[in-house]
């Protein structure tokens, strides 16, 4: 049973980490333009010649 004392905080911590990451991603606008990234990959980068 002593394993629970470690595992439960670990499980909660990981869950909270995921939640925090999701909130961070939302605030950073990661979900604002869901289709754009699929198209941007096709853009030739002219600047790369430098």
């Amino acid at each position, binding site marked *: 049973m002593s394993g629970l004392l470690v595992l439960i905080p670990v499980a909660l911590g990981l869950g909270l980490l995921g939640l925090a990451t999701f909130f961070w991603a*939302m605030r950073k606008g990661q979900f604002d333009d869901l289709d754009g990234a699929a198209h941007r990959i096709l853009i030739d980068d002219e600047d790369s010649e430098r």
Partner: protein
Amino acid sequence: MNAPVTPAAFETGHFEDSRFTVPGIRCAGCIAKIERELGKHSAIDSVRVNFSAKRVAIRHLPELDDDNLIAALAGLGFEAQRLDDNPVAEDVSEARLLQRSLAVAGFGMMNVMLLSVSVWSGAEGSTRDLFHWLSAIIALPVIAYSGRPFFASAWMALRNRRTNMDVPISIGVLLATGLSLYETVAGGGHSYFESAVMLLFFLLAGRTLDAAMRSRTRAGIGALLSRMGRSAQVIGPDGRLQSIAAEDLRPGMVMLVAAGEALAADGIIEQGSTSIDNAMLTGESRPEARVIGDEVHAGATNLTAPVRVRITAAASDTVLAEIARLMDEAGQSRSRYVRIADRASRLYAPAVHSLALLAFIGWMIAGAGVHQSLVIAIAVLIITCPCAMGLAVPAAQVVTTGALLKHGMLIKDGSALERFAEVDLAVFDKTGTLTMGAPAPDLSSLDDDARRVALALSSASCHPLSTGLAVALRDAGVVSAELSDIAERSGEGVFASWRGIDVALERPDTAQSEIAVQLRIGTTRTVVNFTDPVRTDAGQTMAVLDATGIESRILSGDASDAVARVARELGVHARAGASPQDKLETLEHLHRQGRRPLMVGDGINDGPALAAAHASIAPGSASDISQQAADAVFTGSNLMPVAVTVRGARACAKVVRQNFGFAIVYNVLAVPLALAGLVTPLIAAIAMSASSIIVVANSLRLRSLVR
């Protein structure tokens, strides 16, 4: 991937942000072109294209104003409009709140479920108490955070002495939480934290989908809105031109209206003569001649020559504003429509709550004690908590709107979809709705040389008929002839010389009943007639509607002979020459007869009728005012999406009814168990997820049903 940043912009460090709607962004090339080319401008710091929303955000020095930036985008070949400060801010913040609540509920559900499964698998004594305490510590903040959308809405409804779906949800969640907390403190065997959190999670999933659907279609419609007559070039006392916004125009001002420009106010022509397109106001597709002293109205488009107009009525006094007022009044009846979920909850909530109360009283009489009776009563509430019911409507509607979006139909909200399913009569406007709204030339009278000359001449002018002719000729694969001495004389036509012969594209010599231009090569004169063709699939659309049991009619403001021809072609009943008031009255008359009319129209003159109809659709080419009044907007040149929408809405309504059926069957099976006191938290959790999954799976069938 960020846009290039210029050194000049770095130095000053003081920027403004502007956002524009650019509907023309279609591919990676467009993104690259806008970001790269605008980024080269020395006063622009960064450019970012949002492809999903068709928006461009530009960070620039204050020396550039919106008009400069719009001009710069136009220079790249993109039509742009300034995005008002944040028209959809409310939608976005609502969607964000729901997403965050959903994430928190998901987190809570996973962790509480982990602990609950251990309890169900046989954790005993102090371990069980510890797990209950941990569940409580996780669940209480999660419920307080994720439950806000429901608690707020339920509280609003109760304060207005009404009830909605959120009332039984909130009561169920709060009672389950309260009981579980009591059990935890008292060291009892059953806690329902996982049921409460799971309920919130499923319902939030439905709400989030609903919000995402609305913001997606609103963004689409926002991108379609055109700018017409929002400002005017006013000639000041010193003779200088000044651009003044439509709402700041005053009677007595003189505005210069260029060819191709929309009028921003009512007025009288002081100088010049022209023909105007009044189709938006009257539905009449033929241009009307206007000379000095004639009256012109806001919303009309000046076609041929620039004119000076002395304003007689502006802003809220125009004929246009009068129509907007009619629309406001006409829209009242629609706001009384009660959505199907709220109708269901009117029956559902009292039934469930009295059932729980009866269970409590019954077990008290049977001598079970207050605690035991309360546990059973709350179990009844939890098991009947409308989890599947909360998902039944949004799940089906989200799938349906997604499928309709692929057909080019943007549905504004779920209430519209419910009303589309109920229509029993379709009323179509003619110009711009049944027809394309843009005159197309009949090229059969022209031989090859004539076509080449006609293309060269028409390309040199921006008169709408010339543009239409040029587009049709280019589509027919014609190559332009070489002309010299091209000159356009306002009100007369385009003149040039071709292989030493005088050629011209001009007004026909003889009076024509139809819209036409005359091509003159030397002395040969050929008249090219223009017609506004009926959309190719109009007949088919009406046949499909007819098969669905919906009669079609035409209600047009256009002249009767033009309407009669279209009506004969399509074989439907028609009424011509209807004013906006007539259209509104016709729709209201149909309502009084107990009919549920669907109005399909594009012009400003259709606005009141669109608002008064049981449900309404506008084409993407429609005026702003009509697109805002309509429940749905369709893009493209086909009319078929109208029929597909009605069929899709009916399929959706059927699936919603099936979903309610499932929810009721589930209740009939589960409620006796709950009443008998046999429901444990485990059974509640299984029943709740099973019914939700069935409902969602059933809704997904709509993907293939909407065609």
